[in-house]
């Protein structure tokens, strides 16, 4: 099918991708995912050597993992920094990496990490407790300049060097999500020498990490170059082989145009690509190339409700929306098989996800009954009216994921059948943010990526940004409680309660799960996706 977004829209999507963050609400364009899938045809034995050329959608802008806020920036960072822990993409379990083991205090305010003793940064300095402290202090000092880190380190008090290889991190209040945060590239470890550079210089500097690749350099709007680290033996236990990476070199090339990315993959000018557009996916698979995909963990692509507006303040309207959207139709007609219909307030690849598909079943009859009961009667043009007010909702969307507008136009038709009007307002990313902050909308289109259920708190707590203007003590209690609960089962129960509450109250109308879709050339093998859906290049090899 040759559905191509208009030039302007497509073009707008690339810089936005640059912004689309790990915690991106709206619109994590290329995003990530990292599942159990693995690339390549069944190939013989892995072989060392070779230069893998990978095309990504947007300029990283900043290669410093601590400051990087976007998927594209973190691809490179992920390859040259190690983390304290790693997260199993299938089970969500946190496993050792640089930290051999850890202890969490019962109130989730103290985290003591016992580090392995053999890891070194590329400049030869040891990865020890002092380095861990320097890194966490540095991220905390960045404040809002570390957009993701600021959330991960909320309430950070200090890190204590207990002994050479033991570090104790203390928070002012419970912060259970911190453990998962230590598995992200954002809290990845840089050599103290790199941390001494001023924050502004770190974005384009040759930063030193302890990862399987070393950073050779970053040329803005062009590429990030990486080389294999010799003698690397401290990889994550989740990786398929220990020891040094197979690839000699790795180039992450910036290729903003989705069609050019897939054409380049097809014609062998690159070996793998990120951000496969839904309309290109069929062409790629039709040509025998494989696709590596995974639904992004976090908050699905959804209509987020502004509960302070006259129309959406009415719970009946929110309930009506929940059943008026036909999620299966959206996925089948506009997207590709890599995308799943949303079944909860969290996407299915997120830890502590609970299936709530029953609440989200498409049921236009129920929508009509709900609206009838609330006094919304069909007006002359089919749009419902109550007390002289038309049920016409303003939805804002940013231009950063190609199919955004098409999806919303379909939803517009679906809602129209039940008498709900939808007015689409397409905005540039800055304008979208502005409108979000100012509350000038009924519904906002977006998603958020993170593999920890605490993302629900950042999205729906009344105490944080609270873009939905939500005032719900019951929801607040479960959100706070899960942040302080270290028992995984008890925490999952609290998260399940919160997911249900968000959907029942209609604070969010989830539609589909954003997916990370990578195209993989025939020569590439062993490429997998980690828990936040970034490619894991250590096991990748070329035939």
């Amino acid at each position, binding site marked *: 099918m040759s559905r191509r977004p208009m030039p302007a829209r497509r073009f707008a999507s690339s810089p936005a991708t640059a*912004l689309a963050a790990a915690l991106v*609400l709206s619109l994590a364009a290329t995003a990530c995912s990292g599942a159990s899938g693995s690339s390549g045809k069944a190939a013989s034995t892995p072989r060392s050597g070779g230069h893998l050329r990978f095309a990504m959608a947007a300029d990283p802008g900043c290669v410093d993992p601590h400051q990087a806020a976007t998927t594209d920036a973190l691809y490179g960072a992920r390859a040259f920094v190690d983390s304290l822990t790693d997260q199993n993409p299938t089970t969500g379990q946190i496993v050792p990496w640089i930290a051999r083991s850890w202890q969490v205090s019962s109130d989730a305010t103290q985290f003591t990490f016992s580090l392995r003793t053999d890891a070194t940064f590329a400049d030869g300095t040891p990865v020890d407790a002092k380095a861990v402290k320097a890194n966490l202090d540095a991220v905390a000092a960045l404040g809002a300049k570390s957009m993701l880190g600021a959330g991960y380190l909320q309430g950070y008090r200090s890190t204590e060097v207990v002994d050479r290889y033991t570090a104790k991190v203390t928070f002012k209040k419970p912060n259970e999500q911190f453990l998962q945060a230590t598995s992200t590239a954002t809290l990845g470890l840089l050599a103290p020498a790199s941390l001494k550079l001023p924050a502004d210089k770190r974005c384009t500097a040759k930063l030193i990490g302890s990862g399987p690749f070393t950073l050779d350099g970053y040329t803005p709007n062009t590429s990030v170059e990486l080389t294999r680290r010799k003698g690397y033996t401290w990889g994550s236990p989740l990786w398929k082989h220990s020891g040094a990476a197979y690839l000699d070199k790795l180039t992450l090339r910036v290729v*903003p145009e989705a069609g050019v990315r897939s054409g380049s993959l097809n014609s062998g*000018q690159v070996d793998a690509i990120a951000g496969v557009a839904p309309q290109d996916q069929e062409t790629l698979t039709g040509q025998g190339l494989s696709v590596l995909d995974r639904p992004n963990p976090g908050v699905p692509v959804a209509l987020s409700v502004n509960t302070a507006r006259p129309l959406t303040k009415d719970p009946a309207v929110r309930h009506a929306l929940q059943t008026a959207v036909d999620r299966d139709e959206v996925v089948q007609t506009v997207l590709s098989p890599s995308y799943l219909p949303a079944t909860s307030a969290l996407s299915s690849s997120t830890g502590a996800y609970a299936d709530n598909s029953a609440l989200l079943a498409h049921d236009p009859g129920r929508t009509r009954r709900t609206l009838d009961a609330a006094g919304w009667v069909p007006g002359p043009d089919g749009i419902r009216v109550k007390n002289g007010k038309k049920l016409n909702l303003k939805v804002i969307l940013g231009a950063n994921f190609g199919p955004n507008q098409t999806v919303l136009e379909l939803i517009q038709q679906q809602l129209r059948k039940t008498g709900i009007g939808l007015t689409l307002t397409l905005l540039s990313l800055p304008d979208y943010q502005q409108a979000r902050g100012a509350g000038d909308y009924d519904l906002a289109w977006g998603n958020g990526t993170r593999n920890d259920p605490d993302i629900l708190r950042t999205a729906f707590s009344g105490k944080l940004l609270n873009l939905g203007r939500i005032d719900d003590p019951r929801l607040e209690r479960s959100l706070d409680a899960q942040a302080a609960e270290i028992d995984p089962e008890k925490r999952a129960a609290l998260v399940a309660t919160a997911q249900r509450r968000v959907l029942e109250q209609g604070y969010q109308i989830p539609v589909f799960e954003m997916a990370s879709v990578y195209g993989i050339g025939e020569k590439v093998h062993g490429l997998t996706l980690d828990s936040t859906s970034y490619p894991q290049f250590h096991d990748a090899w070329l035939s």
Partner: protein
Amino acid sequence: MTTYVVRRLAQAVFVLWAAYTLSFGVLYLLPGDPVTVMAAGGGDSTSVTPEQLASLRTRYGLDRPVAEQYATRLGHALHGDFGTSVHTGEPVGRMIADAAPATLELTAATLALALPLGAGVALAGTYTRRRWAAQLLLSLPSAGVAAPTFWTGLVLIQLFSFRWGLLPAFGDGSAASLLLPAVTLALPAAALIAQVFAKSLRTALAEPYIGTAVAKGASRLRVHFSHAARNAALAPLTVVGVLVGHVLAGSVVVETVFSRNGIGRLTATAVSAQDIPVVQGLVVAGACAFVLANLAVDLLHPVLDPRLTATGPKAVAT
């Protein structure tokens, strides 16, 4: 002549100052807040606190009165310092200097292709006596102006890079990687040149001196290419200044399609990230390029047309 040059230079300086001031006004009156955009990173579910935002605003001087910000920044700009990018932390001047060569290269290649192509079409279209050929040739420019750059670029990539594997689809530095983007931009540019040149050629061919030349026994070819073309050349030359602007604007799309690191890409990235210092630096740099191109054309005019040496400066002075 000296007064002419001085006046033109003064005008150039004024244009640059106006570009700076206008861009400052527009950018700082924009509803968006770069700090919020930066902290949101494209998302809503960020947990940056208001205090952290405030400290960031202080860091970039965005909390000071607008007049003070303007004065400080203009002062720095006069010394060539356009501040640092709020996105990458790089000095704006260096970012532009790094991106400029690729775009200059692209502009030069575009003009090198567009000038002969546009002139050729115009000359051939006005010379031929076959009506169908004239009609075909002279309707090409309209088609060239109408075709969207974005589409042309993708079609060229599809054919020359993906299908036939002749040229790379992206990259900068090599001559091969320059060809497709230059052709993409040269087609509409050539069309514009052809339109203007064909029109002035026809005007020139209707002039009495052409009749005189023919009467003196000059061949049609000689009259057309030497007498008429020479006199008609001034009009397309004037357009070159405008073309530089076209190429700069087109580079936003072309550099994105061909993944080139140039001024256009930098602009696109900076605008979407609301990286105000970079956007402003680019506006001034763009104005600078435009002013210089037009200055060069204006100063070249008297050289090409001796009549202007006498009247040019006076015409400007009056």
